[in-house]
């Protein structure tokens, strides 16, 4: 979107968070809650907190081998290194040596066996960061090196699985494939992705009185850290408090991965009685923490003359790494998104979850969905090439529609709107005219070739592990009419806090400046789920709404009784409370309610309705609803060098009735660029010994300003409304836009195809680096 359009859409931005909004704050394009602090350098991240005098700094001693038994561990030199205060190994952990979320297989410190390069073996506590890091390199470790499975194919050959292969199926695929008029087979490798949150992993642990422990962490999941640390230190969860004010980016990379650093800090704080901080070095961070799973996909698809799929078998294999982490749910989500927007009448989706001797891969925006979607979009492109059709026509031919509206996992798609979105976008982006012009250009021009592609997104919203779909909030109203808001969600830049504050301000009819946002803390709202799965606002927004409504209703009932007016005639708006025809300030009403001994504090709770899922049969309704969007991207490639560039991208995305269009547009734009990086420049390279070679921003290239499409037009879909009763009928928006970037990959595929002219789809794997593009032109 050009700036003019952006400004037009975001009309209302003059209401910054510190100012008074005169009407309902919901649906206003307000600035991020911390925007003013961000730009002034005053927003406090974990490492910015003043350091305690006796603060200890930590570093891990890490495995040099992908798979090895530790025969001996000599830490003499580590202990005697200057400024080292203590060194700990697995033997020093009083309780459970585990930082894993599901299976207890993620050790804080290795216990005799290492299963990936970089795995922490021991923990150094020193008086300075440098002293800790230097000492951590001084251990003498004797290993017995064991055979290691590094790649997907290594693990497949060895039959090394992290859990049983999963199958989701409808009908019998083989006979249908055999009957199909057309049948093609192919495969694609889809690379992983490093989160590259700008703020690296960090945590500070401070012992508090009576065996308490207070942790300041950069985590999406404070409750999990609380529970893990309690079990590690043989305490009760109630003894441990974890606080998260904000993260400097997370993207899934701090859902489970932050626990390692918080637990390390807590162990040292517990053992030494001194506060301890773990600020991880960037390179170590990239080596020690998990990433997006890389996938290998094989497809076998039968279709008719219109490109309509009769039957398809998709076989996924993913690199899960050394431990389970969240790989079950991530790979499940890949299966859930292997249909994307398309009805797959006869279908079999097979998912192999491979155990490799590499760092355990983890949550990353989209959580398997992007890989599943890439698979089916690849099949769409392959069908189009085979039939010499416009790929968009193939996509549309396969859309869900009435009578063809049940997903492979048995959920009826009731809210399908992507056909309308695609139709609008096709027109607004001049897709057809541009496609024709590009065809002409490609015939005339020499070594530059262009491609254009329009790809849709349908993304299921809810944690697929049903139990996680719950949230709590805690709201206090003070006698001066100010409101303190707390909920279980964490702020990682996605704008959750401002959205929830808007919801709460709206309930009380007060300006936003009356609402003070407070850190996520396990001592305020307990047993929270991770802020993940795009669910932050859906869950916490509704919980906060419920808490606020409880308090407002108490006040209203009290005032109604006191003033002898009907409840309906008590109206909270514009910072005031109308009591019949009388006007009172909100502050005054709060004070009166206090004097009347009305509780002005309440928790709120929400659990997502309707959802259920049987993992044994892979059938059910795992999602409350779907978020939709579509994107058109035009790219150009150089057939001599393989370089590519995105020239223009148009996006139409459905955020339902947006609570904050500015925040939502930011998610769409940022998500798209992050997805574009995943599919173009971001390449993770491991050597044969399992060492990550791309462990710094000098070798791992996330998009820069100049990688942004030359022209970008982003719109939220105006008719968008959630047919499910979500908070203000909005839709989750955190993850879905990442997958809009598949349009870039498909456009590159088109450009290559125009150069090769082959009847089979170019053999292009992701990311489409210049090297991959150039080599695919040969095939």
């Amino acid at each position, binding site marked *: 979107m050009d700036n003019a359009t952006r400004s037009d859409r975001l009309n209302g931005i003059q209401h910054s968070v510190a100012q008074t909004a005169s009407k309902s704050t919901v649906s206003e394009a307000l*600035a991020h809650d911390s925007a003013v602090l961000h730009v002034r350098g005053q927003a406090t991240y974990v490492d910015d907190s003043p350091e305690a005098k006796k603060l200890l700094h930590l570093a891990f001693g890490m495995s040099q081998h992908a798979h090895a038994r530790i025969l001996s561990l000599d830490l003499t030199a580590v202990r005697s290194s200057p400024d080292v205060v203590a060194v700990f190994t697995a033997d020093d952990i009083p309780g459970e040596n585990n930082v894993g979320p599901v299976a207890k297989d993620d050790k804080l410190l290795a216990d005799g066996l290492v299963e990936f390069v970089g795995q922490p073996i021991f923990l150094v506590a020193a008086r300075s960061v440098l002293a800790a890091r230097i000492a951590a390199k001084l251990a003498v470790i004797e290993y017995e090196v064991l055979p290691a499975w590094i790649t997907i194919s290594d693990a497949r050959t060895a039959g090394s699985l992290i859990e049983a292969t999963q199958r989701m199926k409808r009908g019998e695929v083989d006979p249908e494939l055999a009957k199909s008029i057309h049948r093609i087979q192919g495969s694609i490798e889809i690379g992983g992705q490093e989160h590259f949150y*700008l703020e690296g992993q960090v945590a500070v642990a401070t012992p508090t009185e009576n065996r308490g422990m207070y942790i300041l962490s950069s985590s999406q999941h404070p409750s999990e850290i609380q529970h893990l640390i309690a079990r590690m230190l043989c305490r009760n969860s109630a003894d441990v408090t974890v606080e998260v004010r904000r993260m400097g980016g997370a993207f899934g990379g701090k859902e489970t991965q932050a626990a390692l650093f918080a637990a390390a800090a807590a162990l040292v704080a517990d053992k030494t009685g001194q506060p301890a901080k773990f600020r991880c070095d960037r390179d170590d961070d990239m080596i020690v923490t998990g990433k997006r799973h890389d996938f290998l996909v094989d497809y076998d698809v039968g279709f008719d003359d219109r490109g309509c799929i009769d039957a398809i078998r998709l076989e996924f294999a993913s690199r899960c790494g050394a431990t389970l982490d969240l790989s079950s749910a991530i790979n499940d989500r890949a299966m859930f998104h292997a249909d994307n927007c398309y009805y797959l009448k006869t279908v079999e989706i097979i998912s192999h979850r491979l155990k490799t001797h590499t760092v355990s891969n983890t949550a990353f925006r989209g959580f398997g969905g992007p890989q599943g979607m890439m698979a089916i979009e690849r099949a769409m492109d392959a069908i189009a090439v085979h039939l010499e059709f416009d790929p968009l026509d193939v996509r549309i031919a396969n859309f869900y529609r009435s009578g063809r509206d049940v997903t492979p996992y048995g959920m009826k798609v009731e809210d399908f709107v992507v056909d309308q979105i695609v139709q609008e976008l096709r027109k607004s982006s001049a*897709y057809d005219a541009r496609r024709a012009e590009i065809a002409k250009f490609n015939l005339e021009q020499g070594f530059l070739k262009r491609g254009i592609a329009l790809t849709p997104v349908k993304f299921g919203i809810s944690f697929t592990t049903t139990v996680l779909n719950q949230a709590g909030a805690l709201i206090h109203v003070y006698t001066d009419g100010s409101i303190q808001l707390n909920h279980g969600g964490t702020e990682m830049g996605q704008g959750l806090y401002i959205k929830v504050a808007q919801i709460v301000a709206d309930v009380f009819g007060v300006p936003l400046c009356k609402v003070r946002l407070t850190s996520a803390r396990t001592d305020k709202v307990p047993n929270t789920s991770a802020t993940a799965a795009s669910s932050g606002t859906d869950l916490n927004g509704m919980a906060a709404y419920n808490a606020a409504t409880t308090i407002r209703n108490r006040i209203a009932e009290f005032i109604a009784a006191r003033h002898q007016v009907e409840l309906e005639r008590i109206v909270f708006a514009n910072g005031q409370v109308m009591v019949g025809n009388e006007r009172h300030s909100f502050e005054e009403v709060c004070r009166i309610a206090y004097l009347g001994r009305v509780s002005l504090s309440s928790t709120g709770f929400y659990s997502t309705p309707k959802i259920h899922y049987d993992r044994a049969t892979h059938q059910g309704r795992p999602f409350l609803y779907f978020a939709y969007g579509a994107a058109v991207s*035009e790219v150009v490639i150089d057939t001599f060098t393989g370089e590519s560039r995105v020239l223009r991208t148009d996006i139409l995305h459905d955020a339902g009735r947006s609570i904050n269009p500015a925040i939502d547009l930011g998610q769409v734009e940022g998500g798209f660029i992050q997805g574009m990086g995943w599919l173009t420049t971001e390449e993770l390279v491991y050597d044969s010994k399992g060492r990550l070679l*791309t462990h710094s921003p000098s070798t791992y*290239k996330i998009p820069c300003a100049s990688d942004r499409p030359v022209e970008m037009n982003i719109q939220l879909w105006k008719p968008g409304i959630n047919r499910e009763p979500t908070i203000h009928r909005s839709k989750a928006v955190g993850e879905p836009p990442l997958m809009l970037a598949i349009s870039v990959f498909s456009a590159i595929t088109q450009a290559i195809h125009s150069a090769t002219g082959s009847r089979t789809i170019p053999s292009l794997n992701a990311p489409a680096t210049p*090297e991959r593009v*150039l*080599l695919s032109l040969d095939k």
Partner: protein
Amino acid sequence: MLNVASRNQGTHNKIQFCLDGVIHGVSDFDPTLSLLDWLRFQACRTGTKEGCAEGDCGSCTVLVGTLYDDRILWRAVNACILFLPMVDGKALITVESLAKQDDMHPLQKAMVELHGSQCGFCTPGFIMSMYGRTIGASGTCNASLDDVLAGNLCRCTGYGPIIAAANAISLEQRDDASDITRLRSIARKEMLHLIYDDPLAGIQRHWFTPTSVSQLSDLLLSHPDARVVAGATDVGLWVTKQHRMLDKIIYLGEVTELNQLIECENEVVIGAGVRYNDAHAALYRLHPDLGLLVRRIGAVQVRNAGTIGGNIANGSPIGDMPPALIAFEASLTLRLGDVRRTIPLEKFFLEYGKQDRKTSEFIESMSIPRPKNGDIIRIVKLSKRFDSDISAVCSAMLIRLEAGRIVHARIAFGGMAGIPKRAIHCESQLIGSDWSASTLELAAQALAKDFTPLTDVRGSAAYRLKVAGNLLRRLWLEQDGTRATVFDVEAVHG
């Protein structure tokens, strides 16, 4: 051991710099302490962030001001790999400097209003890069916003709102009068020599900032084991990432003679201490491709610190500039004591990790001859990412024709061997042949005799060899002057 003379030449164990109108003196510190760590942990100015500690993400961007006569030249730099003694005598601006009480700078307001921050962690760095642009800091004049922001990574926004905020701001003249006065008051008259007994490293550390080339030359004779540092864009990482204990550092940044750049009729002479950004315009005038190459080396912050001399001296096999300079037949002047020698640049690179530099010898300058009118020149950098990336392959081709025949050809590559290297077989194939597509095809094929490239994270051997040849093939199609690359075209209109 140190001799008495050099000890006496140096003054004070203290550096001074100016920040927000206050002169700060810092003494008795590890001279490899980064400016970032001083800001965050000594001065408790935590607005400046550490994102990578290797000069790639820009979260630690600050402005460093140098007094030149009656004005201050501001440079955006990465504080994470800037050694604190490098700001001796300088003025600093950090993100905390911009707002006056509740009154934010218009740039900050625009970033808020246009939603330029999400997680906010990269934001202070962006603010500083953009502020640098508004006050005309080094490397920002006439530069595109993409270029100005190339050294700042953001993982949340997708950059659009940040670019919009930068576009919304008009340039301004910063009033530096009081800083100028302060900088004059702390201007150093003699060489800085810091000594620090480092309990952690168990060594005595020395830092020298000579101010003249003769001082430098004497220092290197008396301290042949000293590490010479110019911009620290590489050496900084030895400290932050490898934790190497540098005990003696000689910093070139204040050696007046090395900071000179002279544009002559037949050549351009660049002192070894000249920063990339200070050489950019002259190199662009020498040939636009040289200017475009410089624009893709690091980013503004790196080019504000890094020098071409340093780039050559550290002998990288990629060698950002050397392939181009070799094609242009640049020469290098080295100095040992009072003795100078001048060698062709290509002879300086002996093998991987080994250069033709004697103990105590240093690079004084390089000289780049101007190409002749009509020379066919093409410099191409190929990398995964356009900006702020290291080349997989960098090629520089200079071909001279007479009556349709190639009479001179210099073809040099980076990323194809252990050193930046000429393609001799390829050149032989070209020289004496007709200027034709088939000649270029044969020349492309000859590259296989010149190079056996390696496979690494930036590219496979196969890709490197193939694409290197393709650059020669493409040259034929580019000769009509239409050099359309993917970076030059726009979307179709439809």
